[in-house]
């Protein structure tokens, strides 16, 4: 009998249909994998299950009854818990204090926390789970794996019958993963149903019973783990449909290397990154979330410091220690999180376009040349077809695609000839995506060199001349576009060490 059934789930956000008719069935004592590319809708589905989001349509049946969970607390009380990818523990409290936060045992007319009882209860919980943890230890003294264990213990202290684990092994070492799997197996014996989200295929093969695949917010299939192969799962994940490539790819014969990176290293983040970027080229960076692609971009741009490595600009070695120096060397960075790292939302279009080039808009006595700036931004608005009533419009009132164009305008105004696009179409609707693609092609045709980081494989294949694939901070593959396939990229992207 099934412990949990979700069926016909729909969820829309402004501008995006996140889930369309999605289903999921979980049995007691089952480890059920939920897989799909970034943006496939796994997290959204889990957030609906645990009451973080409200579903638009559909049914959630739990232990034979339909439930409508309003918030996380209600879900926990019902016995549905989630362990998030990023840990949510208070670093300056102890293990036991974290586990029982919000429901501490009290004493003396409920005025004081009964620390003794608190620790005792935690100890009993650990015994039950065969965990070797000291309840009085501070979280800040624990390793990531131990913190993960605390999260699991916390989730189970609610007598959970359904446990969602979102990328639980992402930050763990191999021996820590083994310990985690032991606990997972034990929970399974106790009849807990586990929904296990992971990108690591070998892991799924090892621990799960069934696998449900999602793609583009839709349910694709549920298969028995024993009766399938990793390749089969990957092809279900990426699907067959490719974006219609109406845009002819601009091909350049240029061999001029604008940027070369040699042996870039950053402890624990990047290892031996080597690549060249040529004039007129779009170089795709593929990989899963956390593979280190954004970190490469930030390192080149001087936003994060590096431990070692050399950067060559037009054959000459350069030192880039801050974004200011990167900008001076003609590099522009368009962050995946425009609102946090790319725009001043409360300021107008013209300032956002001019901000990287203020030097050229300053007159003799330090006064800004308002007219020149306005003129330049008007040109950009026209050239990039930015839809805004005027250059004095606040940027936060523009759509995602137009905001992205404003950031592009900023770097074009600065005459940057190396542009790093980090997820250029994230949060942009389909129509505007095409426009951004066309813009990227045009820029490449004009001789700009472009690095395009993207988690969308069709986008990578459609746009780039060459593809670099990363996994766990290393470059695991480099492919010529003509020969690259989604499956091939996925294989490199999941190529873990050991």
């Amino acid at each position, binding site marked *: 009998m099934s412990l949990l059934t979700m069926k016909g789930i729909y969820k829309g956000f402004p501008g995006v249909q996140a889930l369309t008719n999605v289903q999921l069935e979980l049995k007691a004592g089952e480890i059920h994998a939920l897989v799909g590319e970034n943006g496939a809708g796994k997290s959204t589905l889990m957030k609906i299950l645990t009451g973080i989001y409200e579903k638009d349509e559909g049914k959630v049946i739990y232990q034979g009854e339909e439930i409508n969970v309003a918030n996380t607390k209600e879900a926990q009380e019902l016995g549905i818990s989630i362990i998030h990818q990023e840990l949510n523990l208070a670093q300056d409290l102890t293990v036991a204090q974290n586990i029982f936060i919000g429901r501490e045992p009290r004493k003396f007319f409920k005025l004081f926390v009964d620390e003794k009882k608190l620790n005792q209860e935690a100890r009993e919980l650990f015994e039950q789970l065969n965990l070797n943890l000291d309840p009085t230890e501070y979280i800040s003294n624990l390793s990531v794996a131990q913190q993960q264990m605390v999260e699991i213990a916390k989730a189970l202290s609610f007598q959970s019958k359904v446990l969602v684990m979102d990328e639980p092994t992402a930050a763990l070492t191999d021996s820590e993963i083994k310990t985690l799997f032991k606990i997972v197996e034990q929970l399974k014996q106790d009849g807990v149903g586990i929904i296990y989200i992971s990108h690591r295929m070998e892991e799924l093969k090892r621990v799960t019973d069934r696998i449900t695949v999602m793609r583009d917010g839709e349910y694709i299939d549920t298969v028995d783990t024993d009766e399938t192969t990793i390749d089969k799962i990957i092809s279900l994940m990426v699907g067959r449909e490719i974006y219609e490539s109406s845009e002819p790819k601009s091909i350049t014969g240029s061999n001029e290397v604008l940027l070369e990176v040699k042996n870039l290293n950053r402890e624990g983040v990047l290892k031996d990154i080597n690549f060249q970027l040529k004039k007129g080229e779009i170089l795709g960076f593929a990989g899963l979330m956390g593979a280190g692609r954004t970190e490469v971009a930030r390192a080149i*741009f001087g*936003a994060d410091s590096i431990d070692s490595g050399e950067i060559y600009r037009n054959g000459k070695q350069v030192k880039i220690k*801050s*974004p*200011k120096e*990167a*900008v*001076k060397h003609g590099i522009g*960075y368009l*962050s995946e999180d425009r609102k*946090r*790292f*790319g*725009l*001043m*939302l*409360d*300021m107008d279009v013209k*300032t956002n376009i*001019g*901000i*990287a080039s*203020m030097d050229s*808009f*300053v007159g003799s006595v*330090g*006064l*800004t040349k*308002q007219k020149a700036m306005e003129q330049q931004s*008007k040109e950009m*608005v*026209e050239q990039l077809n*930015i*839809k*805004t*009533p*005027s*250059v004095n*419009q*606040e940027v936060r*009132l*523009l*759509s995602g695609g137009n905001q992205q164009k404003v950031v592009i305008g*900023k770097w074009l105004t*600065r005459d940057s000839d190396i542009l790093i696009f980090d997820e250029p179409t994230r949060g942009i609707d389909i129509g505007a995506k095409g426009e951004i693609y066309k813009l990227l092609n045009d820029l490449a045709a004009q001789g700009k060199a472009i690095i395009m980081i993207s988690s969308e494989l069709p986008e990578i294949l459609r746009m780039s001349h060459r593809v670099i694939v990363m996994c766990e901070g290393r470059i695991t593959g480099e492919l010529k576009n003509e020969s690259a396939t989604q499956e091939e990229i996925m294989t490199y992207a999941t190529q873990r060490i050991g």
Partner: protein
Amino acid sequence: MKTEVSNPGIEKRKSKLPFKSGALQQILAFSSLIVLILFFSITSRNFMEFSNIMNILLSTSVIGILALGTTLVIITGGIDLSIGTAMTLCSVMTGVFITFLGLPIPIGILLGILSGGLSGFLVGSAVAKMKIPPFIATLAMMMIAAGLALVISGTRPIYFSDTPAFTQVALGSIIPGIEIPNAVLIFFLMATIGYIILNKTVIGRYTFSIGSNEESTRLSGVNVNRWKIIIYSIAGLFTGVAGVVMAARLNSAQPALGMGYELEAIAAVVIGGTSLSGGKGTMVGTVIGALIMSVLTNGLRILSVPQEWQDVVIGIVVIFAVYADILRRRNT
């Protein structure tokens, strides 16, 4: 996006409001000022007399100049608690240069103002380079400046009795015929300078930009640390000017004064519609905010409301000013 038009830059969107969103608070503040003035002119016959109006303006000048400088800092998303006692320190330094060292008055004034700039530079460096939160860095500077003012002056007021011309800096009148004290003129001059810095120069651009999104600004290749130091230093120069005006008005440097002035200045800035979370604010608003505070104080005094109750009223005004700002944000 219904408001989008295909021909950008040429057509303008018809705005729902007749002014930009940030201007509402300012208009609100300005109408409050008018209402207050009307109220006091009706309730008290003396209020609208020329001498009383000059009185109000004169008492606005010092706090007003402080508020103008600190508006810059607050727009970056920072705060400066040191301006009150730093102003006192500048008064004392002016006394040291003119009375103790016997330097010519203009040079003494210049050095007095520069000591304010130095104090701002130090605070700015602590904030930008040492990454000390502005609240803490300026709290420390507030104490340091208060202590130094007492140490340097030997805890006694420094009088400018040997240089009777000095007091004319604040109380004299440079415009013949009209008895407007120079302190008031200096206030308006500084307001104009502040307006130009904030709206016409690259410094002002970066001030807003840092306050609006510091990380985006940094990633646009702007040396945020350097500009922060510059902004705090400019605010410090304003503090220096306030210190000189204060000393000239009292014809002495009073080393024990100054504590609490920073809060009045910050209140004026906030009443004027500048957001404490940064990115938004105007110099005109600050001028209006400072005027509201002194009109209130003056009017209530004329109506014989005791000092204690005046403070209560101003506190309530601050609450409503900020609440109006929050309501405005919620609506946009």
